[in-house]
């Protein structure tokens, strides 16, 4: 018997990377999962690779708009009638630059992608969770939700805001049997990191490997974060046994964040 048997989960940004790892861990524990990403092709590939038949659905949508979020959360409601677990994983940044040189567009896109998507999906899921007095919301934040880093101000600001949303929302719905938490992973070697990390590293005159090594140096383990560990903690938070954890910003970063 899996820890999430019969649960319906929505995981945004889950055709690859940590979202995909969380979705796979949920499926392994018996959940039905709506996967999401912007590319139909990558989504189809993910569904095929997971190989869980009817237990996995993919919705191609950009959650940087309310309409996109409605389609993703709506798929779970239409197909399975409820949303038990929402994982707000989608997010990221574009054209990273120091604040002195950063464009309005960088901040706007980063906030839409990271913060507004979390807000919209949370609101849509709560509309189902609150009447049923049951639910779990897991926001995949970041080490950058707790700490600053050069050349990533837009992302850092967005993730700090996600953490604030997490804490406040937890107080609003805690008595209704709904928990809201954020996971704060350190650097993970995902394919997304390969894309955006290269740009951020280049801005600092580093190669991607040097950039990753820098993250590893700051960790107690001297290693970057294992994606599977983030998924394992997400399973705990989504499970019955996770009912007593809410409003928390949980570091999964090898001991990097100082608090």
């Amino acid at each position, binding site marked *: 018997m899996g820890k999430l048997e019969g649960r319906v989960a929505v995981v945004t940004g889950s055709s690859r990377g940590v979202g995909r790892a969380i979705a796979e861990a949920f499926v392994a524990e018996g959940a039905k999962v709506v996967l999401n990403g912007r590319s139909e092709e990558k989504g189809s590939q993910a569904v095929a690779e997971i190989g869980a038949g009817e237990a996995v659905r993919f919705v191609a949508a950009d959650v940087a708009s309310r309409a996109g979020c409605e389609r993703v959360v709506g798929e779970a409601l239409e197909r399975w009638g409820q949303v038990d677990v929402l994982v707000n994983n989608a997010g990221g940044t574009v054209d990273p630059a120091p604040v002195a040189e950063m464009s309005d567009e960088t901040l706007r896109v980063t906030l839409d992608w990271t913060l507004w998507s979390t807000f919209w999906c949370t609101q849509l899921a709560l509309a189902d969770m609150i009447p049923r007095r049951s639910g779990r919301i897991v926001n995949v934040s970041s080490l950058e939700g707790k700490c600053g880093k050069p050349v990533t101000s837009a992302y850092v600001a967005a993730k700090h805001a996600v953490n604030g949303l997490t*804490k406040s929302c*937890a*107080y609003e719905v*805690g*008595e209704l049997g709904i*928990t*809201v938490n954020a996971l704060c*992973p*350190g650097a993970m070697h995902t394919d997304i990191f390969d894309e955006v990390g290269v740009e951020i590293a280049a801005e600092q005159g580093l190669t991607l490997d040097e950039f990753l090594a820098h993250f590893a140096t700051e*960790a*107690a*383990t*001297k*290693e970057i*974060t*294992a994606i*599977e*560990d*983030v998924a*394992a*903690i997400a*399973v*705990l938070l989504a*499970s019955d*046994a*996770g*009912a*007593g*954890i*809410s*409003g*928390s*910003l*949980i*570091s*999964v*970063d*090898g*001991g990097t964040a*100082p*608090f």
Partner: protein
Amino acid sequence: MGELDGTTAAVWDDSSGLGAAIAAALEGAGANLARDDGEDVAPFLAAAAERLGGLDLAVICLGEPGPSQPLAEVSDENWQRELDDQLGTAFRGVRAALAQMLPRGRGRILVTTTVESKLARAGATPYVAAQHGVAGLVKSVAHEVGPQGVLVNALVCGAIAGDGDEAALARIERGAIKRPNTAAEVAAAALALASPAMSSVTGTLFPVHGGTVPY
């Protein structure tokens, strides 16, 4: 197949029930388990390692605070006793566990603390200071032994159902879930962190307190 099949674990318990719940969860997941019989933490962990043939996981459940007393009236003896019961025990337990784990290049250490490792509590200043010390110990030692394959974490436990005093009840009211935590919830978190597959969580004050701590 349990997720801890083949894992050796020792649970030392000076609390009111957390150790029993954690031990049950570990045993349910297949761990080969030793529990203390009232011995001091260090000799217990050494003996457990010998009996089990090595120690993969050590769980140290710290005890309850001493009687409430304003700091202005705390004697040197009472201050020292509280520091020793909490921080001293954590230190001796972690050191004893490391003696087993460092030579093997792997291990997991969990210390149960309370929200007083992060928050104030009037009338319990020696306990609060000692608990904050435990948090510092866990964070620092994690950085010392991380590269050697040993992960050290604290579980920050909220008031557990049945044992809340007035201060704890007031704190619960200010939290997110408005109820005490359960020993089973602490045990589930312990189980997640105990997994040999877990490699990225260390030096963390892992929250099982229903949102009663703001950071």
